[in-house]
């Protein structure tokens, strides 16, 4: 097995196109575990992109927030732009594993690994993010809601890497949050993770966005539930209807962590909790 560590994006892409046997490695918090448990072959050669400084960091211009694929969870939870404008990203990053994982794990790795439980997936789904992906000529753009194809499968073309995530800055009077349930206070794979974003004009919700992880093969938006909240005041009745619809939109399984029944219960309760918190925070009467 070989360990290749290019210094530039161009070199990384050239290595990827020259040989088809490379596994891309960033923070390693998923890849290394999958190698250890035999989900990935240990003989596979690794292309370490952690040294590509251009792909790390957050910038803001022209109403667009750009997050480099190698931005770590710790970067996200500490970055002023993210904490101010995309708090659900910061909150999700703060729940990934423990501090050690957050220090090396990256948003790009979390998304490209495409675990059904990826904590950063619900935030990018509610944020209408665009995944900017390398391509032969100019970078290719994939809307977030078309990025997750199946369990551990993305729309990222073979031989390409995720470069950055583009997120439109949210409008005024927007509330967003990531609510995660695990058994303990940290170090948990989400039993359910919910990102919620509500934008308000006057006293009414004009845009409602809900996305979940850990309740289907891929992280997904809950469009029917969103409709139940659009135009509402996030009142209990609307929240209850959204919760009811959401439990029909998800398809959780029983596993060693939790039963499908409990996960369904959680989805509904988290939506009602999000509505309650947002209503309070946006001072809707």
């Amino acid at each position, binding site marked *: 097995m070989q360990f290749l560590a290019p210094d530039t994006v161009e070199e990384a892409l050239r290595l990827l196109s020259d040989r088809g046997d490379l596994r891309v490695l960033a923070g390693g918090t998923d890849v290394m575990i999958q190698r250890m448990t035999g989900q990935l072959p240990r003989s596979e050669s690794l292309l370490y992109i952690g040294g590509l400084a251009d792909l790390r960091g957050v910038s803001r211009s022209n109403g667009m927030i750009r997050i480099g694929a190698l931005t770590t969870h710790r970067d996200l939870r500490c970055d002023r732009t993210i904490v101010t404008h995309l708090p659900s990203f910061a909150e999700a990053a703060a729940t990934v594993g423990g501090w050690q994982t957050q220090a090396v794990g990256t948003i790009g790795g979390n998304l490209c690994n495409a675990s059904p439980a990826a904590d950063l997936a619900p935030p990018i789904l509610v944020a209408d993010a665009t995944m900017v992906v390398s391509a032969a000529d100019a970078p290719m753009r994939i809307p977030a809601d078309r990025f997750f194809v199946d369990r551990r499968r993305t729309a990222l073309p073979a031989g390409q890497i995720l470069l950055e995530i583009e997120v439109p800055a949210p409008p005024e009077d927007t509330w967003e949050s990531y609510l995660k*349930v695990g*058994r*303990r*206070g*940290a*170090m948990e*794979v989400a039993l359910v993770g919910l990102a919620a974003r509500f934008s308000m004009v006057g006293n009414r919700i004009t845009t409602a966005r809900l996305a979940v992880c850990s309740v289907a093969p891929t992280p997904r938006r809950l469009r029917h539930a969103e409709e139940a909240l659009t135009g509402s005041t996030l009142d209990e009745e609307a929240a209850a209807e959204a919760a009811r619809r959401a439990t029909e939109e998800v398809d959780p399984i029983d596993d*060693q*962590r*939790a*039963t499908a*029944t*409990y996960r369904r*219960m*959680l989805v509904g*309760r*988290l939506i*009602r*909790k999000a509505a309650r918190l947002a209503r309070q925070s946006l001072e809707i009467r």
Partner: protein
Amino acid sequence: MTAVGMGTSRSDADAKVRGLAVYGVDYREAGMLHARLLRSPVPAGRIIRLDVTEARSSPGVHAVITAADAPEHRNGLVLLDTPFFADDMVLYEGEPIAMVVADTATQAQSAIETIELEIEELEPVSNVAEALAPGARLLHPDLDSYEILPGTAPWPKGGNCGGVMSSDPGDVDEAFEEADVIVEDVYTVPRQYQAYLEPKSATASYDGWRWTLNVSHQFPYKARSRVAQSLGVAESRIRVVGHHIGGGFGARLDLGIEHYAAIGASLTGRTVQLLNDREEDLLSCMSRENATIRVRSGLTNQGRIVAREFECLMDSGAYAGDTPYLTSIVLLMAGSVYRVGPTRVTAKSVYTNTAPSGAFRGVCGTYLCFALERHTDRLAQAIGMDRREFRMRNLFEPGDSMLNGQTLEDADILREAFDRVEDAAPWDKAGKGPLRGVGSAAVIWLTNPLAGSATLGIQEDGSLGVSTAATENGSGAVTMGLRQIAAAEFGLDADQVYVTSPDTDTQAYDAGSQGSRTTHVVGMAIEAAARQMKPRLFNIASGLLAVPPDDLELGGGRVSVRADPSRAVSLAEVARTALGAGGPLSATGTYSVPLPKWDPDSAEGLLFPVFPVPTYHVHQAEVEVDPDDGSVRVTRYVVAQEVGRMINPDGVYGQIQGGVAQGMGYALWEGLESHRGRYTRRTLESYGLPLAVDIPDVEVIILEHPCEAGPFGAKGVAEPPIVPVAAAIANAVSDATGADVTSLPIDPEELLAAIDRLQEG
């Protein structure tokens, strides 16, 4: 005597913090070989074919060892039911079938993978109910022919039961007729994995006659006797050398993998090291057993318990291990703390096709206390009485007896403990508010009485060496407590005392780190040694100072004249003088705890009949349950614990905080559930150990009632703080939500359902 009752630094802290401490897994010898085990991939089956031909000729391989090369007899802690390697039948997933010894562990593992193993799988006897069902397949058809540990009285066993303990005073049914209300409950608990940082290891060498084992074991003398027993040789042919222990919690008390390293060494003539990886450690560890507990009590409308039936089915896994002993503890707890009237008790150690279970801090006490104290809450609620009031009415008084006939003259300490908790966190004000609750639990626990020893030597530099086979298992009992006791005996500071690590060739017997015994038992041995040594010490000083021995006193590293402390000789000078005046200042003390009286007719199969040096404990938990996800947050936790006399506050508080954390893990997150003989959570990632972020600061109230026969009055401290935790938390959670909470870990899903019922009702 300033060394006792104060904090002191641990003599092992510096090496541990700097990474210099050598643990069992770190131990190395030049040219040593490495071994890997082939473990059964299935929980139950018959070995049809085992072909190791290819493994024998694999690169780097020195030996491939199977049942054909190992002793044929069975071994065991008390019931000799365990084969060296599985031969005909495999009885649990992870059971060793063969071992490869090679130049490197990688080569050994590669060779393991070439072994052709064919097993005809059988439907596993996967739980206690299946094992006890009529017509169940017997795991040990030859059970009746198995030997038992020499010196142990035979006990009832049969079928799929490796041991049955039963007690029936004869008047239980009549007593139930006096009851106004009868309450019956069933509780279930899963296994708990000790989850120490250092997986098991053993390094063995052989000189043609004797084996030397380098290990991190809680009980080196037990490792010695069990390795000897499994090899079929005299104990004195085994030497066990102990190293730093990366956590044990009971999992390193019995034979682990030491005998495999030993046979590897004698068959290759080389030093052989065997290390568990984490997954095989978890899968094969002698975890705390899962159990089902049924308790039925009759009580009067006035709140008096008049009769009880108590049944406990304990899953020993494929081999009995310590479970036949543990059945006795059921008798010792079923009618303790509260007066209960005539009580019938049955406890069974039941075989299943799962990994053998074993000792874990607090052993079965954790779940017996959970069942008893949940049931106590339910009794109070059945007659509409406040739960604390009910406890106070039924609480033991001095002179009350446990079901084994052991009388507790100091049982009033229980009431004192309840009072002190009440002062700190008044019951009527605790756990108020929506989805908040309070719960309490009390327990009487033992100090393990088994023998120990220590050799003291005043060194020529005036320092004091303590040599003992007692092990420092992380609690500080050796590196703080014993040093302080020895220091206090000779008027030294604790940092003038050093302790050695265990070696069965050079130190006398010691029963290891278990049941809070080290400070108490080995402390007494140190006092005995000090009593022997002091007359000579004073005689020599008397000669040097020309003053009668009775006029001298010890202190500050000197022997001085009481009337004129300026006249003194240093301990160093006394020690040097002693070399030419009869030999070094050295003495060995030994001790074992005298057992309290009990009634031998109180039960059949009572292998562990008493609670020596009992201590008293009351815990109170306050919790808040999250309405959105059903998770439990412990908002306040108060412990009142009787310790005899506190030797080291840091050690005592640390052990209580740690015991509560471990108990919270058991109550809320941990658990090895199995499905058809296989654990479902198989890694630490999914296992769910408690995290610092989830554990509150524990409020500790220490009660001191010095024990006449204890070093400076100290009783056992470290084991019991885990025992009442799940009980107190479960009672608080039930109080908060109305959920029954009859199983552990507490299930948030069940709590959400209970919360929904609360809100609908």
